[in-house]
């Protein structure tokens, strides 16, 4: 295990034990460890900052409420992402009803920014069934096993969705990809 990952794993164990013991500082520690990843994930799922911030906060509140279910055995991250995913799916259902447009804040050179917006729009246009494996495996760089665990499907089913999702994204991007800097 790389050193950073080992440190994170030890810190995770320490904070989860503290949370189980009712230590009030534990949530802050867990938020420090996972806040950024959960925010990025929820932003990618929801497409806008305000909803991503709400979903991130709600995810950590649920961690506290469900702390009795916690196990410091390496499955915490899967459990955490599952909570965030359920919240995102609820919000996406609300968006579908209200037709809220996604927003995005990008920085960088104009051509690169245009490409990123194009990629994100193409990704948002994909059915959730394809989008999720791309977010977990290609953007969040999780293993196929971890992504499959979050989605509660088998690894072969995950890979099948991932490969079909990549093709669907490629087809949506079309000519934009040929202008890749």
């Amino acid at each position: 295990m790389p050193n950073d990952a080992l440190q994170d794993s030890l810190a995770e164990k320490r904070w989860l034990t503290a949370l189980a013991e009712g230590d009030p500082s534990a949530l802050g520690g867990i938020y420090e460890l996972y806040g950024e990843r959960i925010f990025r994930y929820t932003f990618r799922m929801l497409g806008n900052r305000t909803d991503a911030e709400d979903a991130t906060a709600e995810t950590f509140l649920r961690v506290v409420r469900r702390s009795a279910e916690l196990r410091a055995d390496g499955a915490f991250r899967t459990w955490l992402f599952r909570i965030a995913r359920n919240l995102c799916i609820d919000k996406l259902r609300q968006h579908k009803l209200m037709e809220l447009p996604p927003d995005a804040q990008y920085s960088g050179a104009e051509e690169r920014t245009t490409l990123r917006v194009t990629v994100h729009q193409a990704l948002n246009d994909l059915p959730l069934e394809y989008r999720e494996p791309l977010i977990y495996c290609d953007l969040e760089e999780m293993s196929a096993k971890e992504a499959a665990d979050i989605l509660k499907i088998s690894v072969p089913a995950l890979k099948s969705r991932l490969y079909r999702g990549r093709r669907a994204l490629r087809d949506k991007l079309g000519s934009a990809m040929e202008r890749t800097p």
Partner: protein
Amino acid sequence: MNNELYKKLVDLYAGRELPSELDAEMEAAAAEDLVLGREMHTLRSAVDLLHNDAGPEYTEESYQRILMKLYARGAAIQPKAPSPLHLQYHLPIQG
């Protein structure tokens, strides 16, 4: 190796999951078969675009707003970093 097998390996090629020898073998096959080559390279470009995506920016403001939402909902959590000046509440100066 025949092209039918190469076509089955395109997904692994795109995700850079093949050993380097097989990767090179597919590149050579792609040079002979333009349809296969286009499929391989466009798919790999799409995957590379995702892998190189830096993601949404996690700003100090977002970090603080999430903490405030947690605090407002009763979580035992306090901002650990000082708030940036522009997020601090300014009292009017008394004369």
